[in-house]
C-alpha cells in the first residue's frame, strides 16, 4: 500500500508486518513516556537518585549513547576529510544513528535537570570555565548539524524528491556536507572530550580527578579516543543487526571489515593511553590528594576486577580480535569483538559516573549503592523505542544503504515455474 514511498528497486516487508513491528515499539514508547511524564510532573523524587548519587542511570546511559553516536562524525571524517569513498555505503545510516543518539540524549537530559525550562540560562549566562557549559553548547550545535545532515537523506525519499523545491534544496545541501562534516568533527572532538573533562576536573572526587594538559584533564583525551574507537564498531554492529532483521545484504563485507580494523587500531591506542593514565593516577595523582587508590577498590562488588575488565577483557581483547584478519573477516568474531568493545566503553562511562559517586570523599561518609527506579528505566526505554521507530521509518522509506540495490536480487520467489 505504501510501495510508492519505498525507494525503487528495494524490497521492504509488507505494511502489515511493518505496522506490527512499529506497534510494539510505540507501546514501549508510550510506557516510557509515562515514566518521563511522572518525573517531569511529580519531580525527580520519582527517581532513586539522591544527594550523594546525583547522577544515575540517565547520565551513565547518556554518556554511553553519545560515545556510540560518535560513528556519525567519524564516518564523516573517513568519507569527507580522508576521502575514503567506500564509506559512502554507511554514511547515511551513521548519520541517522547519530541523530537518534544525540536527540535521545538531549531529551533525557531535559528530564534529568530539575528545572528544564531554565535550560537556556546556560546559553544566556555561560560559565566558560565549566566543562558542562562546553558540553551544552557543543551538543546543541552538533544536534543542529546532524539534523541538517539528515535533511538531504529525508528529502531524497521517492515521493518527496518529486517536489522541485525539495529536490533542488537537498542537492545544494549535499554540496555543503563536507563543510558541515568538518564542523561536526570539530564539535564532536570538543564535546566527547568535555564529557570526559566533566569528571577529570573534579578535585573533590579523587577517584575521577586526573592531571592533564592545560585546562583539559587526561580524561578529556581518553573520552575522545574511546569515542573514535567505538564509533566505527557501532556502525558495523548496527549494520549487521539491521541486515539480520531485514534479511538483506546492505553493504559489501569489506566495508564492515574495514570499519572493524579502524576501530581496532584506535582501540589499541586507547588501551595504551588508558594504561599509562591509570598508572600515573595510581602512583601520583591520587596519592597527592592523600587518597590511596586501593581504597577505591576494597568495596563490595567494585573490586580491582572492574579495572581489569575495562582495560584488558573489554579493551585489549577486542582490539586484538579486530586487528586479527582471520577473526575480523568472520562475521561472528567481528560482531563479538564489537560487542566486547562497546561493553568496555559502557563500563568506562559507568565507572566515571556511578563508581565515582558511590565513593565518598568525605571521610565520615560511607560507600553507597543505588538502583534505578522503574521510572528511570522506563524513560530510557522510551529513548530506545524512539530510536528504533525513527530508524525503522528511515530504513523503510529512505535509502540508508546505497549499496543495497547492487547486492540484492529483485526476484521474490525461490521456486518459479517458468512459462516458455
Amino acid at each position, binding site marked *: 500500500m505504501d510501495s510508492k514511498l519505498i525507494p525503487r528497486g528495494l524490497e521492504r516487508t509488507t505494511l502489515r508486518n511493518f505496522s506490527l513491528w512499529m506497534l510494539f515499539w510505540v507501546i514501549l514508547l508510550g510506557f516510557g513516556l509515562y515514566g518521563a511524564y511522572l518525573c517531569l510532573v511529580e519531580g525527580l523524587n520519582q527517581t532513586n537518585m539522591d544527594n550523594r*548519587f546525583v547522577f544515575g542511570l540517565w547520565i551513565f546511559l547518556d554518556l554511553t549513547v553519545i560515545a556510540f553516536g560518535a560513528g556519525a562524525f567519524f564516518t564523516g571524517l573517513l568519507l569527507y576529510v580522508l576521502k575514503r569513498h567506500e564509506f559512502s555505503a554507511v554514511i547515511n545510516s551513521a548519520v541517522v544513528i547519530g541523530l537518534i543518539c544525540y536527540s535521545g540524549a538531549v531529551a533525557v537530559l531535559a528530564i534529568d535537570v*530539575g528545572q528544564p525550562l531554565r535550560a537556556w540560562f546556560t546559553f544566556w549566562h555561560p560559565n566558560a570555565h565549566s566543562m558542562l557549559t562546553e558540553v551544552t553548547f557543543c551538543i546543541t550545535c552538533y544536534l543542529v548539524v546532524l539534523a541538517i545532515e539528515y535533511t538531504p537523506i529525508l528529502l531524497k525519499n521517492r515521493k518527496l524528491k518529486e517536489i522541485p523545491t525539495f529536490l533542488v534544496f537537498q542537492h545544494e545541501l549535499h554540496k555543503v556536507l563536507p563543510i558541515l562534516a568538518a564542523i561536526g568533527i570539530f564539535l564532536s572532538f570538543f564535546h566527547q572530550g568535555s564529557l570526559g573533562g566533566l569528571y577529570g576536573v573534579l*578535585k573533590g572526587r579523587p577517584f575521577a580527578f586526573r592531571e592533564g594538559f592545560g585546562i583539559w584533564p587526561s580524561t578529556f583525551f581518553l573520552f575522545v579516543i574511546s569515542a573514535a574507537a567505538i564509533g566505527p564498531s557501532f556502525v558495523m554492529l548496527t549494520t549487521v543487526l539491521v541486515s539480520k532483521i531485514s534479511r538483506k545484504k546492505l553493504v559489501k563485507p569489506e566495508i564492515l571489515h574495514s570499519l572493524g580494523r579502524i576501530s581496532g587500531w584506535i582501540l589499541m591506542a586507547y588501551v595504551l593511553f588508558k594504561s599509562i593514565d591509570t598508572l600515573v593516577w595510581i602512583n601520583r595523582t591520587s596519592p597527592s590528594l592523600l587518597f590511596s587508590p586501593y581504597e577505591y577498590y576494597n568495596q563490595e562488588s567494585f573490586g580491582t576486577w572492574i579495572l581489569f575488565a575495562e582495560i584488558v577483557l573489554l579493551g585489549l581483547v577486542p582490539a586484538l580480535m579486530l586487528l586479527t584478519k582471520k577473526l575480523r573477516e568472520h562475521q561472528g568474531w567481528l560482531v563479538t569483538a564489537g560487542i566486547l568493545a562497546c561493553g568496555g566503553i559502557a563500563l568506562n562511562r559507568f565507572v566515571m559516573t556511578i563508581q565515582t559517586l558511590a565513593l565518598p570523599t568525605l571521610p565520615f561518609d560511607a560507600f553507597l549503592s543505588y538502583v534505578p527506579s522503574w521510572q528511570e528505566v522506563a524513560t530510557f526505554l522510551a529513548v530506545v523505542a524512539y530510536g528504533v521507530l525513527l530508524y525503522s521509518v528511515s530504513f523503510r522509506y529512505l535509502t540508508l544503504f546505497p549499496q543495497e540495490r547492487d547486492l540484492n536480487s529483485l526476484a521474490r520467489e525461490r521456486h518459479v515455474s517458468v512459462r516458455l
Partner: protein
Amino acid sequence: MNSSEHLTSQYVMVIDVDRCTGCGACMIACAIENNVSPAHPDATDRTGVTWMRVVKVDSGKNGNGQQARFLPLPCQQCAAQTPCVTVCPQNAVEVDESTGIVFQMPQRCFGCRYCMAACPYHARYFNWWDPEWPEGMEQTLNPDVAPRMRGVVEKCNFCHGRYHAARAAAAEEGHPTSDNVRYEPACAQACPTQAITFGTLADEESGVGELIRSATAFRILPKLGTEPRVYYLSELKWIRQLAEREKELPTGEEVHG
C-alpha cells in the same frame, strides 16, 4: 594554616568538636532560619535538605579505645579553587569577595547537580520535592530568606539573610557600613554549649583569629587545596587524622594555623 589566605574582612567559622554534644539544635535552628520545609514523608537521610548536618564519627577501635564524637558539617565555604563555583554552567553560585561567602542563586540554578558532584564535602542539597509547609506552619517562615522551589540546589550560606539584616541595621544606626559587620548565624546562636564561633579575622572580639591559630585547629581534607573557611578544634588526634587523611600526625612544630 596561614591566616593570610583569608582576607581579614572575610568570615570564618570555628567549631569546637570537643564541645559538641550532638544535640542537633544547630540543624533545627538552621532549617527554621532558612525556610527549609519539613521533609516530605518519603524523604530519607540521603534526600533530605540539611544545610547543617551533624555526623557521628568514631575512632574505629573497640573496647577501651572506642570513642565517638559529633561533627557539625555546614558548607565549608571554600576560599580557593571553589569546586562548585568553577563547575556551575550558568554561574549560579559565586564567591562574594568581600565576605568570602559562597552564595547560591536558586533563581538561576536549573538543577543539573554538577556542583553537588563537585563538592568534596557533600554539603549541597537538592530539592527533590516541592517544599510544603503544613497549614499554619507558614507563619514560621522567615521573611528575610527566600524559599526555594523544587529542582534547584541549595546549601548553607552562613545565614546571608542575617548578614544583610545586620548591615541594614548598621546603616540605620548611622555606623559606617563596613563589609565585616558583626552578626551571628542561626547555628552559632542556637548551640547550647557555644561550640560554634563565628566572625571575621579583623574582629578581635569574636576570637576566631586566635582559635584558628591554636594547635588543635584543623580543617577537613586540606590537601584538596580548597582552603575551607570552616575550622574545627579537637584535642583528639584521631579526629584530626581522619579529617586530614594524614597517615602520621605532624610534630608540634608544624602548626595548624
